[in-house]
């Protein structure tokens, strides 16, 4: 990953001016690079990293392991397309291993998520089985540690 993308991963709110200083480039060059990344779809968007547990009504998250029968010609694409269109679904990954699709689902309550799995996911044509795992707590997300207290600096205060 180049420096520009690395910096934006840390903090998407850096201004073009700040990025230009840090990267020793002109603002114009940085702005163009950003535009190019957006056009190519390398950068798909800029989002806040939320600690959902701090919200008044924290949503419920679950990982649903889906085993599916791949379609001739289309493979897993068809089922993935159908799953990712559902608005309850946060992310969908094709996995190597015991199951095929990892589907992260967000709902208001556990009941909501359970109903979603029972009524909409498991009833899909090619789905062979589902296995639902509810998220109990999040410690780190998108590379960010969610716990509030700053990690203390363990460096010895040497006279150097």
């Amino acid at each position, binding site marked *: 990953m180049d420096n520009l993308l690395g910096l934006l991963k840390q903090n998407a709110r850096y201004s073009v001016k700040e990025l230009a200083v*840090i990267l020793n480039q002109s603002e114009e060059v940085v702005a163009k690079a950003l535009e190019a990344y957006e056009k190519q779809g390398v950068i798909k968007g800029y989002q806040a990293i939320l600690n959902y547990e701090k919200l008044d009504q924290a949503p419920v998250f679950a990982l649903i392991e889906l085993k599916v029968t791949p379609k001739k010609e289309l493979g897993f694409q068809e089922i993935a397309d159908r799953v990712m269109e559902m608005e309850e679904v946060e992310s969908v990954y094709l996995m190597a291993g015991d199951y095929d699709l990892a589907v992260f689902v967000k709902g208001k309550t556990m009941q909501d998520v359970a109903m979603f799995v029972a009524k909409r996911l498991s009833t899909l044509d090619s789905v062979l089985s589902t296995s639902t795992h509810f998220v109990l707590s999040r410690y780190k997300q998108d590379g960010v540690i969610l716990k509030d207290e700053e990690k203390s600096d363990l460096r010895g205060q*040497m006279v150097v």
Partner: protein
Amino acid sequence: MRDFKINQNLSALKPSGIRKFFDIANEMKDVISLSIGEPDFQTPWHIRQAAIDATEQGKTWYSPSTGFLALREEISSYLNRRFQLTYDPNDEILVTVGASEALDAAFRCFVDEGDEVLIIQPSFVCYDPLVRMSGGIPVILQTKAENKFKLTADELRANITPKTKILLISFPTNPTGAIMEREELEALAEVLRDTNILVFSDEIYCELNYTDTSHVSIASLDGMRERTLVINGFSKSYAMTGWRIGYAAGPRELIEPLVKLHQYMVMCAPTLSQFAAIEAMRNGDEDVQMMRNEYNMRRRYLVDRLNAMGLSCFEPEGAFYAFPCIRSTGLTSEEFCEKLIYANQVAVVPGSAFGDSGEGFIRISYSYSLKHITEALNRIEAFLEEIKQ
């Protein structure tokens, strides 16, 4: 109570000016520090793994006194590929307990009572005391902001006397971030060539050089190898401060006395750290590059913001410190740092802690994340606004 007299040279040493600010910072809450002089990166995992492996295999005995030959060979090849220096791993390299041991031993090996040792300042706080403990007389070469804190040939020449035994230089420099390029070192070499002056070159920050040309060792210049001890270590380049592993390299006539003293002082450098150091030299180039790249981004951001807020700062081209001038505030370095920590809870180090010529400056370490640096700079900016009123 009995009066056990402490060694006179030791009694005469002044306590470090950095300590005081650590003590204040430790008592206060919510302090953001930009004062620490060691990498914020952890030692790369593969290096730590090498030490774990050695521990598991029970390789916990003393090493040969000069260090494992495998490590001396790696150091020899590193110095050659990076800085075109040639040292025989058999008897021209000594592995030490950090660069600090190498420095201390070197002074004690070559300084006699009353010998003069030329030291650049502002510089690392240990040089002056170590010279005094060895019975030598530190002669301070005050480098200047208008020369980007480089040492000039004139400054060197003007301070040489018949008693001058050693010139100690340390580029890239803590705390100024100054570096010296080949031509500039060549001018110093020209002054030294016809003398009997030894050069101790502390190159611990050699990998943290942000110019397009990499670090140049004075030992690589004509006529300098024979008189130069290159002192270096793994602490800053590989983020290995706590491993206490460094080395001295020089012609065998200079290394031999060092080995003699080293054997009596410490037997050998820590064995497990030596295994880690071997791994660092064999497979650590990418880590060094990654860290340099990170430091460089922070450096640009820091210097740009300091200048924008009116703390004029020459561009530091090495190490991980900026050394802005604070004279525009009308405060001394100590006053500035004390007010800053009490008013806005940011800890930085007064330039005067690194020698009288550091007065009027502060040392800011960028061995911290950009996020941390940004927050600290916001506070410094607010502080400057407040003291203006």
